[in-house]
């Protein structure tokens, strides 16, 4: 069974802080946390800000790494293929890492317990899109999936409360190509960004409906699955695939887009909305817009929820926005930068494809490279645990 190839390595933060020599031992690959009856990381690591991200390892394989706020690696879990997004349980003790589309695996990882990661496989006729979220009580996981023969997006509903993960149902997302999902309104509502792009695993990563795509952001009743609201952009922006989202302190949903239309155009790429109020577009300063290749990677709010960061990896920029006014606050140049996570009250941790991990305290401060593990490429998304 190929999932058995999943390999785990771990070190404790205490060992790390006592001397980064632990890293050398880690690289020797002799750690197997579960074999030793320990968790991936120690319980007291919860006292520190921890982050997780998918990445490509130096040898070309793929995995998930848990790092601390100094950018130092605490633990690593090998993946059978390239990962993408990670959903974190409300208590921060578990997370589920999804395969990059059109992948069919997801790993439920409990880094503090002596349990093996549980491997989920998408059901026949479906693949994962790379993102998901937990229910407020942590018992359920909603995973965006492609019902590709029916050309419809669904949220697979998984019960992760028992010994075995069970798929207990699904909710239609009201669109094609659902990509990101988040909880809103105290957990009563699921917000899904339907990217609008039709794909089929028989033609991996080929886009089949660019001329007719209709992306949307849909607000769903979490219990009933009813569509509460569906927002689209104006028709001249129907080729702006709405993909990644974050929620600010006021409960507004911010979404970043990837434009599939004429490459000579520089459409707006960032919008915010609520269930009742349709999308308001934020204007990217023209001097920046022309270099972004109309592509936003991650959208993340800081811990205070007053600043939204949006990464533009093709333009090598991270753009910051004022959550209350939608105003542009500034940008940092980060080559191949994509992963973003809230750091402390106001700042962000930023990861990039050249291994860099940098912190930025606020949109006005200079980003500081904390670490750059050699040979590593951090993947699109990073989360705070």
């Amino acid at each position, binding site marked *: 069974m190929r999932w058995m190839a999943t390999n785990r390595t771990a070190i404790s933060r205490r060992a790390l802080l006592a001397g980064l020599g632990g890293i050398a031992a880690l690289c020797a690959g002799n750690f197997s946390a579960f074999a030793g009856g320990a968790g991936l990381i120690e319980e007291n690591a919860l006292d520190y800000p921890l982050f997780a991200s998918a990445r490509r390892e130096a*040898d070309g394989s793929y995995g998930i790494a848990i790092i601390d706020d100094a950018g130092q690696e605490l633990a690593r879990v090998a993946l059978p293929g390239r990962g993408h997004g990670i959903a974190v349980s409300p208590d921060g003790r578990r997370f589920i890492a999804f395969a990059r589309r059109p992948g069919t695996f997801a790993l439920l990882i409990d880094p503090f317990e002596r349990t093996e990661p549980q491997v989920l496989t998408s059901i026949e006729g479906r693949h994962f899109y790379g993102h998901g979220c937990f229910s407020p009580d942590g018992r359920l996981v909603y995973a965006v999936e492609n019902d590709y023969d029916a050309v419809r997006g669904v949220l697979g509903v998984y019960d992760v409360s028992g010994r075995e993960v069970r798929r207990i149902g699904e909710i239609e997302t009201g669109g094609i190509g659902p990509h990101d999902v988040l909880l809103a309104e105290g957990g009563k509502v699921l917000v899904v960004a339907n990217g609008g792009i039709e794909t089929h695993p028989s033609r991996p990563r080929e886009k089949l409906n660019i001329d007719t795509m209709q992306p949307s952001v849909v607000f769903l009743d979490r219990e009933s699955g009813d569509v509460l609201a569906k927002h689209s952009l104006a028709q001249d922006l129907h080729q702006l695939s709405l993909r990644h989202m974050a929620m600010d302190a006021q409960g507004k949903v911010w979404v970043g887009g990837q434009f599939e239309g004429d490459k000579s155009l520089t459409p707006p790429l960032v919008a915010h909305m609520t269930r009742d109020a349709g999308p308001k577009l934020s204007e990217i300063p023209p001097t920046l817009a022309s270099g972004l290749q109309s592509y936003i990677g991650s959208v993340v709010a800081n811990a205070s929820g007053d600043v939204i960061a949006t990464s533009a990896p093709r333009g090598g920029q991270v753009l910051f926005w004022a959550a209350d006014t939608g105003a542009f606050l500034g940008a940092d140049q980060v080559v191949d930068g*994509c992963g973003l996570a809230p750091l402390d009250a106001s700042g962000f941790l930023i990861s*990039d494809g050249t291994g860099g991990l940098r912190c930025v305290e606020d949109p006005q401060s200079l980003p500081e*490279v904390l670490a750059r593990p050699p040979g590593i490429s951090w993947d699109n998304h990073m989360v705070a645990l």
Partner: protein
Amino acid sequence: MRYLIYAACVCLMAGPAAAQDFSVNIKKSIEGYIRPAADGFARAADDLAPAIDAVCRETTAETKAAFAQHYGDVVTTFAKISFLRYGPLLEDDRLNRLAFMPDPRGIAQRQIRKILADTDSTAIDASTLKDKSVAVQGLTALQLIAFDEDGQVVLGDPGEMRDFICGYTRAIAVNAAQVADEVAAAWDDPDGYSSELLMPGEKNDHVRTSKDAIEVIFNALVTGLIIVKDQDVLPALGKGPESAKAHRVPFSRSGNGLVYLASELKGIEDALRAAEFEPLLSEDFAWIPDSIYFEFANAQTLLADITPPIRQSLQDGGNYDRLKVLTLTINSLRDTMAGELAGALSLSGGFNALDGD
């Protein structure tokens, strides 16, 4: 809905149509640059421990100066390989063991202080030092111990810790020489990592074609440029001349900051030259290499115009601006290499930028 429309910026992506064979470029990179550079670093590193012994045996201005000279040679030759962030430098965590960078939170300083406070005997023997934290066993650690903030050699100075520090610095030098020898030997081994690049597909599932192999080599050069700018220069520049922090330039404590930067850039340039991509470029793209080398020369001129040491001279007339211009020059170099040259050679670059989701 209105939005701004800009004239199309046509990217130069029209490289060779057929699958290109980069075998010659890989061979030339390894034989013409990587192996000689790794050998050069190993030779310089071998001379470090004797220089420390000389200082500790008889501490004079001459022995100190000789040590400082040898340390500078090691830093210079290390700069020539530090951007080869694949294969032998990654195995056994060698790169981090040679130099723990970046370290904005001062992790190394804290750990070294503890070693000194405890007179930790495992730090004075290379065979046990190598199993300690990567932050305390390499050239960056040696610099913190052997030089003061003004760049003076304090190794060998009288004090109750003198012998311990001599032992610790010697252990670092022996350890660094050992790692440097391992790197050189690994590159020289015809069945070692170089064979994964020279015979793609046979030994490494992730390096299946000569294009995969040359991308490993080429993308490391681009990452090297990013490191020089983002990690080595920008933190020193801060937000403006008033808040500049010259001590953030790597190896500036020992007075080797500028030479380290210059050597990194020279190494990247020499590695690019050694690859000899010129014959693969069509006439339309023949201008690219000379444009790149012109910018590398500009970068060297900017650095040469700053009088070392940078910790003392950053605020002197025009030097801050020179480093600022250097960052723009490196930006331009990166853009030309990762954009035009990579495009002309049909090489794939950025991980997220290339194929995000």
